[in-house]
């Protein structure tokens, strides 16, 4: 990331994602659904109650015996607590809430732990990362482990540490989720991406966040 992009990201006055943060803050305290409850009615002030939360996602959801990401956690509260319909993936509302919650963990280390319960999901994510796929038959690891720092037709290959999602991309002229970014790499190797929210995608996200454990969260990040 260039110096200018970093400066734009770190200053709330110039970070273009701030518009989503403001939306997220408004949604946090707006009553919704049959239950007529706002997030704030259960969780209080997000600036204290959500501190560190995003650094622990994706995480294990015991009721469903699977790993869920932050978008899915938000939608579970929508459905179960607010009795409102789930927000669509990549909708302005869902990105706004996830960015606002993520903002409360900015600067905190990513805190994903592997234990007996989560190991099968972590292993599935790792296997997907190391598996060659698509018509171009490339594994994520061949670029992001074996060749990071090198140039793919002039594009520096990053290590694929997802420290800033949802992220503002100048190329997208908007905010997007990690799964939106992963779809780009799938399409690049001419592989069929998973559907948004598919367990295979969430396990891959879980592995990537575990791989980046200890790194500081910078949500919402800005990238060219």
């Amino acid at each position, binding site marked *: 990331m260039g110096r200018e992009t970093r400066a734009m990201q770190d200053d709330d006055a110039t970070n273009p994602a701030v518009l989503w943060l403001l939306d997220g803050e408004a949604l946090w305290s707006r009553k919704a659904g049959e239950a007529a409850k706002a997030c704030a009615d259960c969780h209080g002030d997000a600036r204290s109650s959500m501190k560190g939360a995003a650094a622990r996602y994706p995480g294990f959801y015991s009721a469903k015996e699977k790993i869920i990401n932050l978008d899915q956690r938000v939608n579970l509260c929508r459905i179960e607590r607010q009795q409102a319909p789930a927000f669509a993936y990549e909708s302005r509302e869902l990105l706004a809430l996830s960015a606002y919650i993520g903002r409360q963990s900015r600067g905190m280390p990513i805190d994903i732990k592997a234990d007996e319960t989560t190991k099968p999901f972590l292993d599935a994510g790792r296997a997907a990362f190391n598996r060659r796929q*698509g018509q171009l*038959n490339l594994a994520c690891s061949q670029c992001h482990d074996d060749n990071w720092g*090198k140039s*793919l*037709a002039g594009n520096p290959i990053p290590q694929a540490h997802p420290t800033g999602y949802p992220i503002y991309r100048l190329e997208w002229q908007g905010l997007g989720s990690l799964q939106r970014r992963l779809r780009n790499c*799938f399409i690049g190797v*001419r592989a069929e991406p998973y559907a948004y929210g598919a367990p295979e995608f969430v396990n891959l996200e879980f592995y990537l966040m575990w791989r980046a454990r200890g790194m500081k969260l910078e949500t919402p990040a800005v990238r060219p």
Partner: protein
Amino acid sequence: MLRFFTLNILFFIACSVSAGDDAIPAPLTGARGDPGRGRALVANRQVGLCLLCHSGPFPEERFQGNLAPDLRNAALLTEGQVRQRIVDPGKANPGSMMPAYFRTEGLTRVAPAFKGKTVLTAEQIEDIVAYLVTLK
């Protein structure tokens, strides 16, 4: 007719590989390709994709890759070895990251638009081989 022709080619490749060769000596199409078209294919980022990973003598192309050796290295190989490295590089080097440009089996989760299709046609591969051997 075309289908029969393609099967023939695949059969031919299978034979030459099972013979333990690291080269495919004869052109896939039965004829030499066109080096001018080959050069354009190598430089094309949507078709040949070579410059994503490789560099080469393309002063007009600003953005080239550095994941792979310069294409001028092909000068160290015979024409048949160059052909094999494009058709299916894994045959010469099992750990190769380079995609196989003329193979459809043994792949995972290929996007529907590309299923059952090779990255390049036999004609395109011959054009590229014809270009690469001019780098000697």
